């Protein structure tokens, strides 16, 4: 997408935007001056959009080292008077939660929004935690849009709300909102002439117990005021059924969308209360809604967050409306909702029947899980480590993996991931297992993840005398989320030169002497280094350095350079090593022959190495490019 169209349109014009692009436009319209993130699906396109327009729009934007630092930077800007936003995926908020649980007390100055993109059904995440609980935990207001238009409009509302009550606002989306594309009517840009100037207030911005004791009470007071704001907010609305009905449904966000469609499908008459201001909830509105309906269904994804609150409202006000949700078993607790989920719930609650087809995907076909791209240096390193372990006669090796493209090393034919829990965990978990078992542990971590949260664990491993083989897969980017730069990369999000941090200097500065830097395409040297590390005691770090194939391909295309490889069928001995153990998606078995698909071949040439093709049957071919 040409992101500059986000700036080129004027008020009143319409654009077809992704939820995340609409949020980026909202950032511009709200006069935000400061934005920071650590990339993570499904939030990444907010950063992608801001990276290309921030300069023009006069917004400071950075990819921070991790979410905690990103939140601190945004807070720093906010208490200096500027509007700021920090955005991340749901699990990123765990990393930033330490910040959140103090800045709710101190409050802010310039409007500050914390955007979290949750991932029901875990399309690209290790869990589907429900981040609405962070709003309860921190007593912070929370808004939830249900469309790209709302994503933009609610965000602007969030900044005004934040400033009015001097409090950070949580802005929660889910995959189906962030990645929902819809028509967005553009609004006008509020030009902010504010300049950052920090005015000290030591009774407020220093969270010492003496201050916090008082600030907690202020926070609770703000929450009381916000209850009123929520009840009067235009972000909550009712889709009234055309006929008088006894059935009501309370819903929000993506669940609202499937609920709306499901009600239409079933043809039942139901009023739908859509809540956009989800903390504090609009008590008065809900009380009235409960009183006006005999039965109220609460349709929300993940935890019974709204349902519990709705039941509270009923209990406090002595309302005996029949409330149906997850707690009574009408709705499921896990995975994203579809129309089917809601249709089934409506059927069970109202006793109506609606036939739904069961069949969906054909599970009997050959599966297609994600794989390392053609030319991906991670494949080469996993291939090498597997060989090194075998050649060393090592039994009971433990592979401790981490978050990134290289998590795919779990899948066949590699199978090199025994544990993987969260960002930076490979080193800490690996250390624990090594200490507990005495077994050999090989930990994998990517460059961006190493900077994000791997460094403290490595210091810890060194300090406490652990034995460990650490392989840092340095492909010079944050690949999985969309090739964002990280502190090890010598350019910024716009491709301009930037200072970079030497990972090997960090490792050596810790005191680790055994540091090898290898090119994963060089299978021979890599193998030698991994075998040496397996034989060695103490900590060995191998930095496998080779740029991400997607970045390299992009560069090569710009230069109109394409190298391809093909199989010499005369020489091919059909040992199947390339398809069985190297498993590049460009190589396959067709009509009894090994063939390379030129449309997929990346030209890395690693398959032509004798370690992969002992028959030397794979060779380079020149290719004319237009």
């Amino acid at each position, binding site marked *: *997408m040409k992101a500059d169209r986000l700036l080129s349109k004027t008020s009143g014009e319409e654009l077809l935007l992704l939820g995340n692009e609409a949020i980026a436009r909202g950032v511009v319209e709200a006069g935000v001056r400061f934005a920071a993130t650590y990339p993570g699906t499904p939030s990444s396109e907010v950063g992608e959009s801001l990276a290309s327009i921030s300069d023009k729009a006069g917004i400071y934007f950075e990819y921070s080292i991790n979410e905690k630092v990103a939140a601190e930077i945004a807070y720093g800007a906010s208490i200096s008077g500027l509007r700021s936003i920090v955005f991340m995926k749901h699990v990123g908020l765990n990393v930033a939660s330490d910040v959140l649980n103090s800045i709710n007390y101190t409050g802010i100055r310039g409007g500050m929004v914390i955007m979290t993109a949750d991932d029901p059904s875990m399309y690209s995440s290790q869990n589907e935690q429900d981040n609405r609980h962070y709003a309860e935990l921190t007593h912070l207001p929370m808004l939830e849009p249900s469309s790209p238009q709302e994503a933009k409009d609610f965000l602007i509302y969030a900044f005004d709300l934040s400033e009015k009550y001097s409090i950070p606002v949580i802005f929660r989306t889910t995959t189906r909102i962030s990645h929902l594309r819809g028509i967005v009517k553009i609004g006008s840009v509020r030009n902010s002439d504010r300049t950052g100037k920090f005015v000290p207030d030591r009774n407020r911005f220093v969270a010492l117990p003496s201050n916090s004791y008082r600030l907690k009470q202020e926070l609770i007071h703000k929450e009381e005021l916000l209850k009123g704001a929520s009840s009067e907010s235009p972000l909550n609305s009712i889709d009234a059924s055309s006929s008088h009905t006894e059935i009501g449904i309370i819903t929000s966000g993506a669940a609202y969308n*499937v609920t709306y*469609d499901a009600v239409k499908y079933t043809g039942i008459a139901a009023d739908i209360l859509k809540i956009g201001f989800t903390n504090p909830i609009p008590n008065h509105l809900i009380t009235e809604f409960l009183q006006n309906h005999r039965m109220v269904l609460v349709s929300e994804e993940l935890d019974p967050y709204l349902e519990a609150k709705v039941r509270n409202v009923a209990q406090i006000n002595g309302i005996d409306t029949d409330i149906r949700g997850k707690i009574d078993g009408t709705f499921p607790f896990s995975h994203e909702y579809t129309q089917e989920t809601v249709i089934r719930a409506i059927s069970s609650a109202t006793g109506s029947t609606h036939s739904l087809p069961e069949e969906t995907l054909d599970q009997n076909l050959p599966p*297609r899980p*994600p794989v390392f791209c053609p030319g991906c240096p991670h494949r080469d390193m996993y291939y090498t480590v597997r060989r090194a372990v075998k050649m060393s006669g090592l039994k009971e090796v433990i592979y401790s993996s981490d978050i990134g493209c290289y998590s795919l090393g779990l899948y066949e034919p590699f199978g090199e991931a025994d544990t993987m829990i969260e960002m930076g965990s490979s080193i800490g978990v690996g250390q624990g297992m090594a200490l507990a078992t005495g077994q050999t542990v090989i930990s994998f971590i990517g460059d961006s993840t190493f900077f994000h949260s791997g460094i403290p664990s490595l210091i810890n491993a060194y300090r406490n005398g652990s034995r460990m083989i650490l392989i840092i897969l340095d492909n010079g980017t944050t690949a999985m989320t969309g090739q964002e730069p990280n502190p090890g990369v010598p350019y910024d999000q716009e491709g301009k030169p930037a200072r970079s941090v030497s990972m090997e200097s960090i490792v050596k500065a810790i005191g680790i002497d055994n540091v090898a830097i290898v090119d994963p395409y060089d299978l021979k040297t890599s193998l030698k280094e991994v075998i040496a590390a397996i034989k060695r005691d103490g900590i060995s770090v191998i930095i496998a350095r080779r740029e991400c194939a997607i970045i390299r391909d992009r560069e090569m295309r710009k230069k109109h350079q394409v190298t391809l490889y093909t199989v010499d069928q005369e020489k091919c001995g059909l040992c199947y090593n390339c398809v069985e153990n190297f498993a590049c998606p460009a190589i396959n078995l067709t009509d009894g022959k090994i063939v390379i698909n030129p449309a997929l071949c990346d030209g890395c040439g690693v398959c032509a190495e004798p370690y992969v093709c002992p028959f030397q049957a794979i060779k380079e071919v020149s290719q004319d490019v237009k």
Partner: protein
Amino acid sequence: MSEIHGLSQRGGSVSVDVRTGDIRSPIPLCSALDLLLAFEPLEAARFRRCLRDGASVLVSDEKLPPIWLGIRRMEYPDMRSLFGDESERLKVHIVPAKELAESSGGYRMINSVMLGAAFSLGVLEVSIDSIEKSIMDVLGDRNATANLRAFHMGAQSMALKETEYMEQTRKNP
């Protein structure tokens, strides 16, 4: 319209849903799809049960064997076995998308070829002017020409392919 991102460049099976009309959710009811644009035959087969009776399937004929097969020394399944049991229920059209894309400007024009083929079915509720304008808006001057060519080649190919396919399904009920 909703997309499942993240793995799109990692060779996994990726789907995008497009819905129009007075609806809110981007996720369709299962087994209610009107049209499936499949960029790979195996993936078309994987999703074929999501289509309503009488729906159309446009399949790019370019086979991309998943590595799962090679690891087992297995070959790509026979094309006819992929759709055989559905040929009565669905209208399956095989599009030589790669060939048409390459002759109209390059492999990456496959998207526009498939869009053209879909347009020619007459089920998209958009005008040709609107599609052409969008191709120009989205892709810019440099890439629009080849993509417009690819779009029209895709549309024209359907007129020819229809009869051919009908013969094929009659042979393999």
